[in-house]
């Protein structure tokens, strides 16, 4: 037989077997909605208050938004992550709750997928390393199975 029949996706012909994911009911932000937040994040960088910048970044992340909105959100957070000195990373992480650390890991992973993030891969890996050191692999396990993606 010419065709590799083992690779045929038989489910695509069955209308009943299409898995439709739950509607998570997320608000879809536009770039204008987030301008205020970007401003705050930039201010916290200017005043060298990394803890506050991170805290801002991990609250109300724009999960349901369009890709370009997510992209500019990620870049804003990347700036904070890059500004932080290695020595203060641990103190920042210790101030976050479990849920907030989960979001931070999510953002770090999303950034690794962008070309901008890859350019500062060392800093991102440093953050991930410190997170795993202080709270364990839980946030990574949750990232892998989380439907709320950035």
């Amino acid at each position, binding site marked *: 037989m010419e065709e590799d029949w083992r690779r045929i996706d038989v489910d695509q012909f069955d209308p009943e*077997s299409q*898995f*439709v994911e*739950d509607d998570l009911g997320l608000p879809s932000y536009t770039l204008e909605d987030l301008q205020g937040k970007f401003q705050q994040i930039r201010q916290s960088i200017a005043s060298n208050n990394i803890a506050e910048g991170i805290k801002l970044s991990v609250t109300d992340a724009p999960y349901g938004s369009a890709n370009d909105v997510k992209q500019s959100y990620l870049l804003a957070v990347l700036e904070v992550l890059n500004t932080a000195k290695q020595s203060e990373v641990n103190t920042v992480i210790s101030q976050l709750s*479990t*849920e907030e650390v*989960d979001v931070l890991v999510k953002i770090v992973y999303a950034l690794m997928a962008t070309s901008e993030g890859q350019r500062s891969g060392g800093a991102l890996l440093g953050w991930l390393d410190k997170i795993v050191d202080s*709270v*364990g*692999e*839980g*946030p990574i*396990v*949750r990232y*892998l*199975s*989380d*439907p*709320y993606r950035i």
Partner: protein
Amino acid sequence: MSLPLSLSKQPIYDHCFSVDRRSVAISKGNDVEIYELTDSSGKPRLLTTLKHHDKPVTALDISIDGKIVTCSQDRNALVWVPTNGDYKPTLVLLRINRAATCVKWSPNGKKFAVGSSARVISVCYFEDENDWWISKHIKRPLKSTILSLDWHPNNVLLACGSTDSHVRVFSAYIKGVDSKPSPTVWGERLPFQTLCLDHNLGSWVHDVKFDPTSNFLGAATHDGSVTFIYPGPGELEVAKISKVRTSFLPFRSLIFLSPSKVVVAGHDCYPIVFEGSAEEGWKHTYSIDDPATKKRNYNENQSALNMFRQMDLKGSSDTASSSLLTIHQNTINVLRPFQGTSGEVTKFSSSGNDGKVVIFDV
């Protein structure tokens, strides 16, 4: 104290002890083996092998009257009835087109439910005229593979966890088999396939159990969390959710030791205990067989055999043993109560991918 039994070189997907706790049935590849546990010094003795399936057995369960039900990736389930010291298989008409993944007897042993990748739960009961087990399907609103099932003590309500990340409670009331159930927190009128609870946990639900008082559910999920779901008075209403996020690897199995205590286990290879209540919330209190409390024994690793084994298997000349500090050397798949009353379990058993069955003290 714990009692480990190395029974298989293959992963054990499910195990179940007989009602008198003197023998244990384990899945081994395409077959099910039944071992008799003799006195504590002797080794377990193979009693019989149940051979019929032609794909791996995924789950098995023993009813209160000793019938064994097995289900397999070959899309079939079989009921094995003890007759004259051996087991006779009876056909089950599941009517599914994908692998069967989990099976549970109802507490009275008159029905059982089979979950499958076909997005269907088959509720099976015996039909005398044809001498076989027939099934009714629960289809809606299941969207993905069923991973776990648990019966309410009234033999009617059935909880299920699924890879569409939902926990659901259905009525599996079969006319002529069940008597009318009295109203519970889960609902009053319960015709077949009534949905009594539906909640999205945001991750694959590997196991779900009713608590010993049957007033709420506990669920273990793939994101390394344990969730407790309390039903509300309204239809499909959820009164309270208590979710405990942990830093453990994903959990595979959960059992209640008492209404305020659960034990979970999974990819971390040792049982982990959570305690709490609806009012105070739940939290991780301690672990059983915790590797953090153990010391690595270096003497055992200095043999030449071990050195060459390390070089062969891992390509490393490191003398540290690659074995884990825990009793289980691989993922724990299933936990089951072993000893104690339904409200206060004192011993439980586990089985895992390392081919071990272990009996733990709480």
